[in-house]
């Protein structure tokens, strides 16, 4: 369970700061994905079912359903990208890294996060600027006229949360606690 760490503690009985930070970040990204992303997921499903049912059974499709659905999808992605990154949901080529020594592996892990952090900083900034531009130019959805500006910015915040994950992971690596990086995903059992 994220946030309830059983990781090794310091002499004073408290886990080191990066480990505690990681526990906090794990808890936040999980709750954000579960409640926010989950609501969007179920909402998207419900909206699709309602639209199809009304269209085919009553010949009365939901006006603007497509507009709402596409923005729900965007919010879902924004709220779940940090959780996905934190639970190993990003595809990494492990063919070469399995052959690295522990020192090079640690450098590689740190470098990967630094590179990701730099890219996410640029991406978040650009999304924020694009949001301002969208607001200035009055970009809206087709049917309902929902302004796009806030959604660009919401996506920027989602990417910043992902960046926060990388910052704390980087702290852990720099403190030599690479073993504390692993966060197994919630499993789906049949």
């Amino acid at each position: 369970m994220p946030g309830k760490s059983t990781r090794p503690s310091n002499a004073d009985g408290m886990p080191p700061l990066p480990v505690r930070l990681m526990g906090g970040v794990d808890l936040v990204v999980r709750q954000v994905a579960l409640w926010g992303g989950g609501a969007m997921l179920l909402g998207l499903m419900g909206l699709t079912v309602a639209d199809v049912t009304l269209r085919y059974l009553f010949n009365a499709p939901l006006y603007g359903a497509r507009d709402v659905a596409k923005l729900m999808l965007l919010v879902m992605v924004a709220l779940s990208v940090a959780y996905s990154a934190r639970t190993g949901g990003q595809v990494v080529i492990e063919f070469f890294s399995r052959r690295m020594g522990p020192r090079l592996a640690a450098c590689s892990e740190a470098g990967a996060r630094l590179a990701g952090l730099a890219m996410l900083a640029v991406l978040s900034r650009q999304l924020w600027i694009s949001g301002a531009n969208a607001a200035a130019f009055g970009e809206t959805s087709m049917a309902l006229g929902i302004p796009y500006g806030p959604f660009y910015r919401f996506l920027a915040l989602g990417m910043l949360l992902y960046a926060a994950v990388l910052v704390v992971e980087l702290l852990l690596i720099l403190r030599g606690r690479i073993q504390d990086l692993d966060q197994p995903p919630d499993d789906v059992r049949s």
Partner: protein
Amino acid sequence: MTPELIGAVGLTAFFVLLIFRVPIAMGMLIAGFGGIAAISGFPAACTILGSETFEIASYIELSVIPLFVLMGNLAGLSGMSRDLYNAAYAWAGHHRGGLAGATIIGCAGFAALSGSSFASAVTMGRVALPEMRRFHYDDGLATGCVAAGGTLGFLIPPSSGFVIYAILTEQSIGKLFIAGILPGLLLTALFLLAIAVVTRLRPQAGPAGPRASLGERWQTLRRAGVFIAIVLVTIGGIYGGVMTPVEASGIGAFLTLIVALARRSLSIAAFKAVILHTLRTTALTFMILIGAHVFIPFMALSEIPSNLVGFLTGLDVGSLGVLLIVLATYVVLGTFLEGIAMLVLTLPVVFPVILALGYSPIWFGVIVVIVLEMGLISPPVGVNVFVVKGVAPDVPLATIFRGIWPFWLAMLACLLILVAFPGIALYLPNTMF
């Protein structure tokens, strides 16, 4: 620097990033953004970065990814995979190799509810492996058929591979889904043939199970009927033109949720796990697509794909020769690159070549997905092999890989048949409403 040189530097940098464990989505974003900035300037790169990220994250056709993943996760949880296996087991388990055959049929059926080879291998592995071991099946055959059967999830619709291919190449998701049906059935038949050959050569590898009574057989079939109904509504709805893939995914997920609730198989903890697992897969796919949509314009600007088209179409080997070179390259890449990674890395370069040679993009989508499936079970990094290893930790990897070869050859045969007879993949899409 010329665009070609910048392209070459960008590609090299990208591979270096991958070697040092930068996630593929991030690698594509970095190389694509840097490359566009070098060729067209920083403002142009920023514009593409912002607009493509927003476009992909809000691309409504991509709702099929979370909704079909949700459907697959709920189907696994509600015991539909077990129902499918039990039905196939009751009808075929008493034949030599019958339990392995039932596993393949169960995987094919579950593939129609789940777009993930990983999910198919995990769920069917948990159900089928203990049963096969109880009847003293050869470990290689038992694990090999689960790993190979799991790959059907990538080919039989709904397939995440087809969705990604469709988005990267701007093809119809619905047509690709429908194009996967007949090749999926063909591959299932070839897997069954592979089991028949193995158990004919080594009967002790797959002894016959107990014979079920006729009553038991019909009972298991009735229970699996729910699954048949959902597949008919979703895939049948797409084929019949009644629903778009997005609508079918929403309806499919909803029906599967109803079944899971009706069967009381959905505890709150399990439902949370389903939601989180679905979101995790969704975000992974979206990040890769966002990366690809920044990387692809960079590749186009670098002119590397157009130069490669000129080079390959100028080779004196004919279009079939070029196609075979491309496929052979894919098979080799598949031995050490993860499937989706290979798809997004190669398509920007390979797809223009395929179009220039006059091949159908829908047919090529099916071909590519089968080659990716081969990669899923190829040593040394066959993902499905490691998934099965997780389900059967006491079976050595070498044994699993040994058991996979007959199925890998069946895939190769399927590939060659589809190259020789493209109509197998194109018949249904051409007759869609």
